[in-house]
């Protein structure tokens, strides 16, 4: 199968189409919605399942050196990408330094939902990936926040990193659940997986579809509300920056010599933008930054782009660069 048909095939999946349905529903102002508590429950389920499966995979095929190096690469990518994003954003849009720094922090951090969707694409294509990529995802959440705050301090002062905020970022519920489930999976291995497989494997894709339906609705509403908030340059940044991030991720993957599936995940992590952890940190540390700008960009522009076009595009690129 050539890379283009591979890319095209990943577009027509229940996961992507569920997201598109949600996006469509929101854009045509349908009253379709997923109750808040149900969405929260699905999010907890997905984090637990992906963390657990990652831990089991590491228990079976552990490679500590590669894990350590990939973790380090993830942390460095998360810390460096905001500087690139800041420069590109200042070049492409009319955003002020404060808003640009806040946006840049989002692009260094990650979207765990995009990561989960990518693992699902890999599984449907029969492409293996390393379980430790879950730990890499967790490690890439926070460094970008520090980079964004440093950018603000350098450019105009302000931006405080109080001790309580640092604890909240490092121990936020998603990270604790993801890493906790990863450790449980690593400790209990295949035997543990067999015991709870009906929960963490069988319903996974169906739940992911419903969750992405909800994300589509939220992204669509964000796009509707964000109309007029972003100039054309900023919107273009929301599409160009993930591709730049993906190239950084691919470069790191080639240097590390990790296999195709893991390379795609590192690309996706580098390409995606946070819309949960970083916005919360920015509201505390940089309340003067315009949250409509960074939320609309990360959730309304980059997230749909990555999910519908980015993942197959990155997979095609990685297949060419690394071979499948």
């Amino acid at each position, binding site marked *: 199968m050539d890379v283009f048909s591979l890319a095209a095939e990943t577009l027509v999946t229940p996961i992507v189409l569920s997201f598109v349905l949600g996006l469509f529903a929101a854009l045509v102002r349908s009253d379709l*919605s997923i109750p*808040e508590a149900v*969405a929260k429950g699905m999010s907890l389920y997905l984090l637990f399942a992906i963390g657990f499966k990652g831990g089991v995979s590491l228990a079976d095929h552990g490679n500590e050196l590669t894990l350590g190096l990939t973790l380090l690469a993830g942390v460095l990518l998360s810390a460096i990408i905001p500087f690139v994003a800041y420069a590109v954003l200042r070049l492409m849009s009319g955003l002020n330094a404060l808003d640009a720094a806040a946006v840049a922090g989002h692009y260094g951090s990650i979207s765990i939902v995009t990561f989960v969707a990518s693992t699902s694409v890999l599984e449907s294509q029969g492409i293996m990936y390393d379980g430790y990529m879950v730990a890499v995802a967790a490690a890439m959440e926070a460094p970008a926040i520090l980079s964004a705050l440093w950018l603000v301090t350098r450019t105009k002062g302000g931006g405080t990193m109080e001790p*309580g905020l640092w604890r909240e970022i490092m121990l*936020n*519920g998603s990270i604790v659940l993801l890493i906790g489930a990863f450790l449980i999976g690593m400790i209990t291995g295949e035997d543990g997986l067999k015991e709870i497989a009906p929960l963490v494997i069988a319903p996974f894709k169906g739940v992911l579809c419903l969750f992405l339906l909800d*994300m589509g609705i*939220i992204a669509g*509403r*964000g796009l509707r*509300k964000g109309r007029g908030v972003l100039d054309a340059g900023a919107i273009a940044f929301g599409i160009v920056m993930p591709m730049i991030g993906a190239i950084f991720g691919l470069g790191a993957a080639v240097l590390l010599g990790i296999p195709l599936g893991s390379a795609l995940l590192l690309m996706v992590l580098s390409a995606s933008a946070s*819309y*949960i*952890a970083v*916005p*919360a940190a920015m*509201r*505390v540390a940089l*309340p*003067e930054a*315009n*949250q*409509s700008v960074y939320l609309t960009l990360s*959730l309304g522009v980059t997230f749909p782009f990555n999910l519908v076009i980015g993942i197959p595009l990155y997979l095609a690129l990685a297949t060419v660069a690394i071979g499948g």
Partner: protein
Amino acid sequence: MQTHKAKRVDITIEKIMLSRLTDAIEKADVSGYSILPVFGGSGRSGAWTREDNIGRGDGMVQVVCIIKPGRLDALLDSAFEVVDRHIGVVTITDCEVLRAERF
């Protein structure tokens, strides 16, 4: 029935700032307050509803304190350190309570 004068302070603030605000309130020796969810609204950033929330810090909450008038300044000084840079609304109204010793 005998009633007593009190002050009611309503602070509507981002959910992410809630624990910082309640810490500040307690620092001002106010141990009684209620926290109410805010389902949605509209402000300078436009309209929003809880259904659009995806993060733990999204949305707004309202903290309601009923205190003796003499404690108002200490409470406001402490709370203002938290709410100063953030979006939200602080209102103070006169009210009356039945059991003064509880406030």
